[in-house]
Structure formats: C-alpha cells, structure tokens
C-alpha cells in the first residue's frame, strides 16, 4: 500500500513538471492576436513537370544553342533559364503557346512610370515607340523573361539576328541565355552564376530567389533512384506517401495515423474538426511504421538521430531523412517545420493549414535547417 502511495505521488509530480512548460506555450499562443489570412506563403511546384512543356523545350534548346553565340560560356543549363522564367513570369502559365513558341496574350510588366504601381518608383523613358511593349508613352518589361525593350535590342545584336521576338518562347529563352552568359561566364561557378543573375536584376533578394529555383529544378531533374531504397527507410517513405491527400490538421496525427487536432494556430486555424496531420504528426506516423517513436514536435525531432547541419546543404540529404526548416537555421529552437526527404530535391510533408499531405521542393522554401538521419 505504501509503495503504491509513492508511485502515485511521483506520477502526480511528474505530470505537473511535464505539463507546466507546455501549458505556458499554449498560453503564449492563446495570447496572440488572431486574424484570418489567405496567404499561401509557400511556393508550389519545383520540377520539370510543373513547367509547360513548350516552355521547357525552349529552355533546353536555348541552353544547347547559346554556345554558338557565346563560345566561351560554360555551364548554361535549362534549370538556370527555368529559375529566371519562374520568377519573372511563372513560365507563362495560363497563356497559350503555339507550336512555334509564340505566347498569347503577350506578357507585359507594369508600366514603369514611377507611379508606385507594382513597386516601380522610377521613370523609364520609352525606347521602342511601343514596338515591343505596346506603349509609346513609357516602358515596360515584356515576354516570359521580362526583357526591357532597350535590353532586348542589345540581345538581338549579340544573337546576330537569330532572335527577333521577346514574346516568343524560343527567342526569349535564347536571348536570356546569351544575356546571362555575358562575355563568356563560367556558370558552373557559383560566384559567376550569382553575378549573371544579378545582372538580370540588381537585387540581392532577386538573386537569392532565382538561385533557390535553379537549385530546386536541378535537384528535381536527378533520378530519385528510389529503387535502391529498401527496408525500414522504404517503410517510412511509403507510409508517408500513402497519406498524400490527407488534410492538414493543426496538432493532428500520431503514431497510429491521422487524428483530429487542436485549437488553434496563431491565425486561428483549428484542427479540432479536421482528421489529418500536421507536419510533425506525419513524420511521427511514418517513423512509427518503422518501429521508431519520435518526439511529437518538429523542434524536438531535430534532436533525434544523426544531425545533418544546414551548412552541408540539401545535397547531403538521403531518402528517409527528416528535413527541417527554421527562422534562424543553426539555432534549432527556431525550427518550425519538418518533412521527410524523398530524393531529387523533393520531400513529403504536411505543409500548412488549408493544404493536404503532398510533395514540395526542399529548395523552394527558405530556412533550410539541415536534416536528421535515423536509419
């Protein structure tokens, strides 16, 4: 009887100790102001399959042809052109592209008249009389690669007249390749690739954005080679992939599968009526299928297994690794998201409220914080 009394007392003590910090965390979330938002926040896509086939063909053709115009250029490849076009026009998605590569309706940027619309704050004088941008009173960028008409004229000269129309996918892609190659850059070198992209738009954030997409398309183009993934790693991946389409639920999911979540995310999104997974609920379930019990939240999962530091880059990841994202990579307390790496730059994850379990590109999200290898 006495023995049982001690056990009960210890259990009560342990329960209080364990609950205290968690209750504090809940309190902090409850205290936050709430507000609905439709912001997605995550860039979707990131593989060749997400690019209109005619556009992809133009990128590949241009990367092969550019050597004819800039013989000293090294390392031009289609993911570089895809990275630029993704950021400039989202690959002309939603437009009609003829077999000859003509894009209709034509793509025009905001009129650069310093009005502040679209963020433009300085006046561009008209240079083409409206020939390319359809406006003789001012200037605006044109086509899928968003050339300024004045820049395009220079590219036409560099291409010995082999390109003519910035609204044509093939011409624009080749023009962009020539422009990026400059006087003969070696784009296999990161510093020169950065310089090339910076020339396209002199903004450090523009460069970071484009490089993220280039890395993503590059990784996605590699063979995932999941044929060689066997045993418990395969079990983990298959378990996670089997849940594709299951809705995100804030606080949802456990070792047994999907479950209803809790209330609420900072913006007030509740999981109480949704049977599904949040990011760490999905990983908990998938690893449980392989007999591994994970801590429940993403930041704690980063403390399990062999840590793969962010400084090694995404190329250090192997299929089955946990992959983390943080607001301050290197400081694990700021980890807010976790997924399971599949290879080829892809991960399976429960991204955010309002989405479903799906594949996302690792390099399309900012804040890569390394991985963890448990198997």
């Amino acid at each position: 009887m006495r023995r049982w009394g001690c056990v009960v007392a210890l259990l009560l003590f342990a329960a209080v100790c364990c609950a205290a910090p968690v209750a504090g965390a809940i309190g902090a979330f409850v205290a936050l102001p709430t507000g609905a938002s439709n912001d997605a926040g995550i860039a979707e896509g990131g593989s060749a399959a997400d690019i209109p086939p005619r556009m992809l063909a133009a990128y590949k053709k241009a990367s092969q042809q550019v050597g004819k115009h800039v013989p000293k250029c090294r390392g031009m490849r289609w993911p570089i052109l895809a990275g630029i076009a993704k950021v400039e026009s989202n690959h002309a998605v939603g437009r009609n592209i003829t077999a000859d590569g003509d894009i209709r309706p034509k793509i025009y940027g905001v009129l650069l008249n310093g009005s502040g619309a679209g963020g433009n704050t300085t006046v561009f004088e008209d240079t083409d009389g409206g020939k390319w941008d359809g406006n003789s009173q001012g200037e605006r960028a044109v086509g899928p690669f968003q050339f300024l008409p004045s820049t395009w004229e220079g590219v036409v000269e560099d291409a010995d007249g082999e390109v003519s129309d910035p609204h044509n996918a093939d011409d624009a892609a080749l023009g962009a390749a020539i422009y990026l190659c400059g006087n003969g850059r070696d784009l296999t070198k990161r510093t020169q690739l950065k310089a090339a992209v910076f020339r396209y738009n002199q903004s450090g954030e523009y460069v970071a954005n484009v490089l993220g997409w280039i890395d993503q398309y590059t990784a996605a183009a590699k063979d995932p080679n999941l044929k060689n993934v066997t045993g418990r790693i395969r079990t983990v991946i298959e378990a996670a992939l089997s849940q594709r389409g299951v809705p995100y639920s804030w606080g949802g999911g456990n070792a047994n599968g999907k479950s209803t979540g809790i209330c609420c995310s900072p913006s007030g999104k509740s999981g109480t009526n949704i049977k599904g997974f949040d990011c760490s609920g999905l990983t908990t379930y998938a690893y449980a299928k392989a007999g591994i019990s994970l801590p429940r939240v993403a930041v704690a999962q980063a403390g399990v297994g062999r840590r793969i530091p962010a400084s090694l880059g995404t190329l250090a990841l192997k299929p089955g690794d946990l992959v983390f994202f943080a607001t301050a990579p290197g400081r694990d307390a700021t980890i807010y998201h976790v997924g399971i790496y599949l290879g080829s730059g892809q991960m399976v994850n429960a991204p955010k409220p309002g989405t479903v379990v799906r594949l996302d590109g690792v390099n399309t999200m900012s804040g890569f914080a390394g991985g963890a290898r448990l198997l």
Partner: protein
Amino acid sequence: MTTPPARSPRLLIVSAVLLAVAGIVLLGVPRSQGPPAAESSSTVTANQASAASKPPDGKSTAAASVSTAPAVPTPSVLESALPPHGEGVAGDRAAQQSLEAAWPSDLPAADERQLLTAGRALLRADATGVGRTKWPDVFPDSDQAVAPAFATVRFRIQAAIARRDGSPDKAVVHLVWAGTDRGGTYTDLRITDLFFTRTIKKGEPTWTPQPRI
C-alpha cells in the same frame, strides 16, 4: 460510511524525499526548446544526444517499439511550437519571440536600434527598390530605373533581430519577411542576413552595410 485510513507519516517523508530528488534531477535536464548555442555546438549536442542514447548493442534507442507511444496523445503534447507558413501577421509575433529567445541580445540597445532601422530599410530597398537612393554605396546605380524584384504590396518584415557577428565591430541583421516576386509567387518566412561593420563617419561611429553579392 467509513473514513479512509490515515496516511503513514513514514510514507509522507519518503515521498517528500523522492520528490525533492526528482526535482533536482529534472532541473538539471536541458530543455529541448531552450536557447541553443551556435550552429556548431547545437550540432554537437544533437550528435552527443544520439550517441548517448545508444544501448550496448549499438541499436539506436530511437528504434523503440511503437507501442511505447501513447495511444491517445493529449492536446498539449500535440501543440506545434512555432507557426507554419501562411499564418499572416498573426504569426509574426511568435516568430519574433522565437528569434529573440533562440538568439539572445548581445549589442548595446542603441546599436541594436540603429542596426534594425538600417537593416529593415536596406532589405526593403533591395527587394522592392524603394529608398535605394539613401544607400549609394550599396546601390551605386540607384539613380537609374529599378524594376522591383518584389512588389511593395504584401511586402512585410515579419521579424528582425540585430546581433554581433563575431567581433564588436561587426554585426548581422537577421530578417524574416514575406513578399510577392515578379512572377506573382507569394512566399513568407523568407530569411535574409545583412552584414554591417562599425565605421567612423564625420567623427561619429556608425554601422555601414556590406555588399551582398
């Protein structure tokens, strides 16, 4: 109705001692979400934890039986620590608090304020083009027209901190922000580090931004 038997004084003493011992032990256990050290040391910690958890047979304790997990986890256990993507301004406060907790302040308050003001303005200038003329050394072509890389609409700095960067005369402003690029893709929780050095201008110490590319 009978009354429950009175508790033995000896049992209460034993319980009190055990509770005290357990409390001391728990106080010595590091909290998983406490302020971490720099990247290298946090990695070591993770590796050490991993190595320490290995039983004599070499198998990781992570490979524990699934049955050890609670069948019905309590909601408090399920609470995610930080907001995910897409939370809007409602998630910004949590992001700011997380940064401040994980990366403790180490600069004089006046320096921190100056750096944060400069860092915010510099990021906005770089991403949207607005205000580049204030930074002629960083944007030497700022008198020329700028095609903004990110739209001013929906551009938002979600969280920001300024910290020392290795020496008293170097600092980094770490920013978390959201914006829409030229192709219309909106992303949040974007991360930018802007680096500054302390220089003397007109006899006064000031923080000067370093080139990014």
